[in-house]
Structure formats: C-alpha cells, structure tokens
C-alpha cells in the first residue's frame, strides 16, 4: 500500500512538471530542454528555507516559485530571441550550469552531500506528514496546476502562443511582440516547475544535485512527447505511464544501481522510437 502511495505521489509530481513544460514545448513550440533546472531551484529553495531558517513549507514554496521565475526571467531574456535548435541547446546548457551550481556552491547547497531533513508540510495544526495526506496535498497542487495551465491555454494569451508556434513571423506582422510572449510563458512554466520541486524536496525529505541533471529534463520531455504536445490530458497520462513503466524493471530483479540506469535506457529508447514511429505521441495536436 505504501508502495502504491509512493508511486501515486511521484506520478503527480511528474504530471505537474509535464503540464508546466507542455506550455512552452507544446503550446508555444519551443523545445525547452532544461526543465529540471527550475524543478531543482524549487526543491533547493524549500530545502534551504525549511531546514536552516525554519520557514513554513508553503512560504518556502512561494519563495521557490519566485526564485525559479526570477532565474527563468534572466535566462529567458536571452532565450526568447531564439527558437528551434538554438533554444533547445541554450536551455540544455542552462540546465548543466544550474546543476553545477547545486554541486559546487557548497556554502548554500552542501554540494554533493545534499540537504537532509527537509520536513513535511504542516498548516494550521494540520499535519501532512503521513503518506495519504501528502498525496492529497500533492493532488491539490496538481489540480491547481492543471486548471492554471488550462486557463493559460484557453486564454487569448494562449492563442497568441499557439500562433507563435505555427508561424512566428505572421503574428509579428499583427503587431505582437513575440519575444515578450515567449518570455512570459517561460517564466510561468518555470514557476510551476518550482511547485513540483518544493513538493519533491518535502516528500523525499532530502535534496541532492543528482536529481536535477539533464537526464531528468530529458525524462520530463519524454513524458510530454509521449502524452502528446499541446495536450494537457496527455501530460498527465504520459507521467503515469513513464513513471510506472520502469517500475517493472524493479520486479525483474535488477540491482538498484543498474535499475536506475535501465530506467534511462528505457525512456531514451522510448524517445527514439516515438520520433521514428509516432512523433505526435498519444494525444498530440502538434508535431515538432
């Protein structure tokens, strides 16, 4: 039962990451490949603020969202002038740099040792430390993220994003400054990713740099491409399938270290096969 609760919580966290990334990759057509950087900024914000300053979990999440959105604003100001493969490459490079900050800024992040003892949230005397309560809390955040993403996608702002994806030049002719729109959605997406980061830090009670590598970004990308770009339902289902699928390896009896790498093999191959045979994924309305 604990195991099922654990998997459900992981699915929810990755669904939040998928939804937020889909706004940039699916709706706007920009291949952001550094999502784990913002996920990590959220996680580290919660870990640092709750352990060393004793800040409440929810306040630390708000700070994480702000920090992540701020970082996204800085790098996005450069990124948004580009599209296509440059966008993919610079966001990937940003992920590598943020990872090296987590790894090397010992004073703040304790480097490779990570930060242990991140508490579970508590609010008005309500304690979310048991698995069921935490799952419920995470589900609430997933619902909020889903509604926010749907609101963005269906708004007039979202329609501009889709037209940037279809033909950026054409929408510029109508007087839209597309750079601002690309920057705005990137910042929003990063803020949402920080929510998932805060949740995971508190859920696992521990953060370390190895959870926020480029590999993690590729995993999130695989989730939304499998589920379908520009489909919010697809992101949730993609998270469900891609989190649960490698769990089968655990039952196949591989040792822990190899199972972790097998997981990478599985979703790496998954991406290649998707590109070869079904680039639009399950419910995608947009193909890269």
């Amino acid at each position, binding site marked *: 039962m604990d195991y099922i609760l654990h998997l459900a919580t992981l699915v929810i966290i990755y669904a939040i990451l998928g939804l937020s990334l889909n706004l940039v990759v699916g709706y706007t057509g920009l*291949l952001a*490949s550094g999502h784990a950087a913002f996920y990590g900024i959220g996680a580290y914000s919660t870990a640092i603020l709750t352990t060393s300053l004793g800040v409440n979990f929810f306040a630390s999440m708000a700070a994480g969202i702000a920090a992540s959105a701020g970082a996204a604003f800085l790098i996005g100001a*450069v990124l948004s*002038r*580009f599209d*296509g*493969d*440059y966008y*993919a*490459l*610079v966001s*990937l*490079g*940003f992920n*590598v*740099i943020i990872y*090296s*900050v987590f*790894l*090397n800024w010992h004073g703040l992040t304790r480097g490779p040792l990570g930060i242990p003892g991140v508490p579970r949230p508590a609010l008005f005397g309500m304690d979310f430390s048991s698995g069921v309560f935490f799952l419920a809390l995470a589900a609430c955040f997933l619902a909020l993220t889903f509604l926010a993403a749907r609101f963005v996608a269906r708004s007039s702002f979202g329609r501009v994003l889709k037209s940037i994806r279809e033909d950026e030049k054409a929408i510029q002719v109508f007087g839209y400054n597309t750079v601002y729109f690309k920057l705005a959605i990137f910042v929003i997406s990063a803020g949402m990713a920080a929510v998932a980061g805060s949740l995971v830090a508190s859920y696992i009670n521990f953060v370390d740099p190895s959870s926020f590598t*480029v*590999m993690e970004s*590729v995993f999130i*990308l*695989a989730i939304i*491409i499998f589920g379908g770009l520009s489909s919010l339902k697809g992101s949730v289902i993609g998270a469900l399938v891609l989190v649960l699928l490698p769990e089968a390896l655990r039952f196949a009896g591989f040792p822990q*270290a*190899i199972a972790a*790498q*097998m*997981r*990478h*093999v599985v*979703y*790496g*191959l*998954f*991406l*290649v096969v*998707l*590109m*070869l045979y079904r*680039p639009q994924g399950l419910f995608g309305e947009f*193909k*890269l």
Partner: protein
Amino acid sequence: MEILSQLILNGVMAGALYALMALGFNLIYGVTRFFNLAHGVLAAIGGYAFFTLSKMLGLNIYLSVATGVAIAGLAGYGFDRLVYSKLRKRKASNLVLLVASLGVFTTAQAALSIIFTSQFQTLSETAGQEALSVLGGVVTRTQVIIIFSSLASMLGLAALLNGTSFGKAVRAISDDEEVARMVGINTGRVTGYVFFIGSALAGLAGILVGFDTGIQPTMGMGLLLKGVIASIIGGVGNIYGGVLGAFLLGLVENLGIWMIPGEWKDAVSFLLLIVFLVFRPQGIIKR
C-alpha cells in the same frame, strides 16, 4: 606572470580538445542541419573502447587508439543508419532529429554506465607524465600529444574536404542537398561517411581526455556542450570557425578562472556563449 602563461597553455590545450569536438559536430551539422546531441556520447564510447582494448585486453597502445577511434566512428555511423537516416527520409523537422539524438544520447550513456559502472577511470599510467617546461609554464607529454593529434586531425580533415572528390560531395551537400542529389551524388552514403568521420573525431577527443584526466560515462555532455559552444561562437556549420571558436573558448575559460575556483569553468564558458548570442549570434565567421 608564471600563472598567466600556465593558464594560457592550459587554454590552448583545452582548445585543442574542444576543436576536435567542434570539427566533428560542425561537419555533421553542415550536411544534416540538425544539432546532433548524441555527439558527446561518442567521445565516451571512444574512451571506453580504448579502455577495454588497452587496459582490459592488454592490446598495444597505438592499435588500441586506432581501434577505439574506429569503434566510435562506427557507432556514429550506426546511429545514422538506424535512426537519423530514416527520419531524414521522412523529411522530419530538425527538432525531431534533435529529440531523437537526445534519446540516443540518454540510451548510450546509460548503457555505458551499466557495462562499465559510473566509476572514474584513468587511461594513462605513469608513462607520458614527465613534465616539460614551455614559456614559463608546465605541460605534460600527454598534453603535447593532444595538441599534435588535434592539429594533425584538423589538417587531415582540411585536406580531405578540399582535395578529394569526397570532400567536394560533402561541400555540395552542405550547400544544397537537393541539388547535390540531382547532380548524382549519393547523399545518403556521403552523409553516412560524414557521420563516421565526425564521430571518429569525437572518439579521439574522448581518448585524449582519458589520457589527460580520465573517463566516466557522463563525460559526453560536458564535451558536447564545449564543442557546440565553440561551433556557435565560431560560426555554426563553418568548420574553420569552429576551430577558432574552440581555441577562444579554451582560453577564455582558463583565463576566466584566474581569480575564482576551477569548478566554475563551465559557467564561464556558458557566459561566453550568452555574450555571443546577445551581441553576435552569427558567430565570428558567418557561414
């Protein structure tokens, strides 16, 4: 003064390695027009192929280098045949190819970790580590070998591209693939060979890094980024620009850590990329 010349020497050394990565990356980009993110893992494949042959099977060192380079080349050729050429045939967009190469990268890197464990392995033993003094700085013999093999590869590639009919075909495809096919160039086969050569260069870079410091399965991403940053700041798709960019990157990165700890090298090189993207996105030499 001594530290300055040492930093410059280190910069040139790093530049020579990045140039090898940039050469292969640019060559492949020139004919296929997509960012092949799997390029980095070929360096790791080359390094581990050498490690297996030389350290585990005890083969002669020169033979091991040659075979290791060839194995990396064949792996790149294989990725092209199995994945990229099929996507190209279907006229897939360059982003589809990029995502596919990300998948190839992830799979191959994880496979290396499973086979060889994630442990750091050094390739050189004591041999080749006696230091020479050059212009007030110190270089090891390994590093001299790095410089010379990198220069030899550059010259060899330039001769290949400018002096042979194969080189003409490569340049024709880089200019316009449709037209190249119309005049009877077998573009699929030439592209396959380009993948072999480019990947072999990455494999050589991987082996040389292994001699200088050591190898581990995750070495590919860092080398890839350096190669791509060098290509972009030099002018992407222009192989001479890439070499220039590589040496500039090596120097800036090593001089950049004069006052700060060495682990921030990657951040310095990323900053250089950002500066170029903001002020000169087309790179030093425009294609």
